[in-house]
């Protein structure tokens, strides 16, 4: 058997490259907006922790699950997982996130750490309160 790229192989590869690059460009538009950023930690789709991401704000959040834990460090605008006891340690090896739309996922512990620009407290379930 010979190693040979057929025409369809190259078309396939080009389509994948174009679609991926276009979606990366589309998603990175938000990076350059000067929004207020919020760190949000979701545990099994429930908002566990939320705080504005400031340059002089440092905090350590301990996210405990049934079996595993994650130690999330918010350090002067950067967020990373300092320690975890999940089996694959993918969250621990992830590079620190600092911009909108980036996220760290810990699949064994079902934890998602993300940076978003909207505050969940602004549009909460209660529309108005009358007295």
């Amino acid at each position, binding site marked *: 058997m010979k190693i040979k790229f057929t025409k369809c192989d190259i078309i396939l590869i080009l389509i994948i490259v174009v679609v991926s*690059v276009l979606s990366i460009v589309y998603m990175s538009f938000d990076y350059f907006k000067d929004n207020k950023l919020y760190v949000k930690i979701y545990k099994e789709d429930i908002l566990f922790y939320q705080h504005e991401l400031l340059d002089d704000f440092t905090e350590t959040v301990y996210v405990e699950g049934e079996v595993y834990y994650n130690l999330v460090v918010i350090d002067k605008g950067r967020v990373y997982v300092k320690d975890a006891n999940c089996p694959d340690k993918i969250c621990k090896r*992830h590079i620190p996130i600092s911009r909108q739309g980036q996220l760290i996922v810990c699949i064994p512990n*079902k934890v998602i750490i993300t940076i978003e620009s909207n505050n969940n407290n602004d549009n909460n379930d209660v529309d108005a309160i009358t007295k």
Partner: protein
Amino acid sequence: MIKINKTRKIIFLSILTTISLIISIFENSMSLPIISPGAKLGLSNIIILTTLLAFGLKDTLIVVMLKCIILTIIVGNPISLIYSVFSGIMSTIVMYLVNKYFNNLFSEIGVSVLGAITHNISQTFVAVIMLSNVRIFVYLPILSLTSIFTGVFVGISAIFTFTTLSKYINH
């Protein structure tokens, strides 16, 4: 497809399962710098693709299932079983269909790239369902870009492995 008797086939399938297991364990213990989580070389797919080319769909599914189950027992990460079994079966079926019905259009490299991309898409899909959070789809473009490189590499390696294997079996 290679035609051999049943006993030899069982022996070859078990050897292929073992090789893919060893490659997976080696890959698991390697610490790559992570841009995107779960981005791996997928070197064991060389063996899966070779099995598909040599023995067909049914035997490949057996190898994939065995590899996933034994790897889970060895590594000790039970949650990864759902991810690896689902994406492994999906990518095997896609590779089989493309290799059978679009054989004149795609070479083994194209088949491998399609398998790699199916693997990534189905794994992301499982993660979205398991964590019930749509944000994880953000990773898909980067994973697709990496799957081109790994797919081409795996495809070329599988061609070499399959050529050697068929030569070895026929003698």
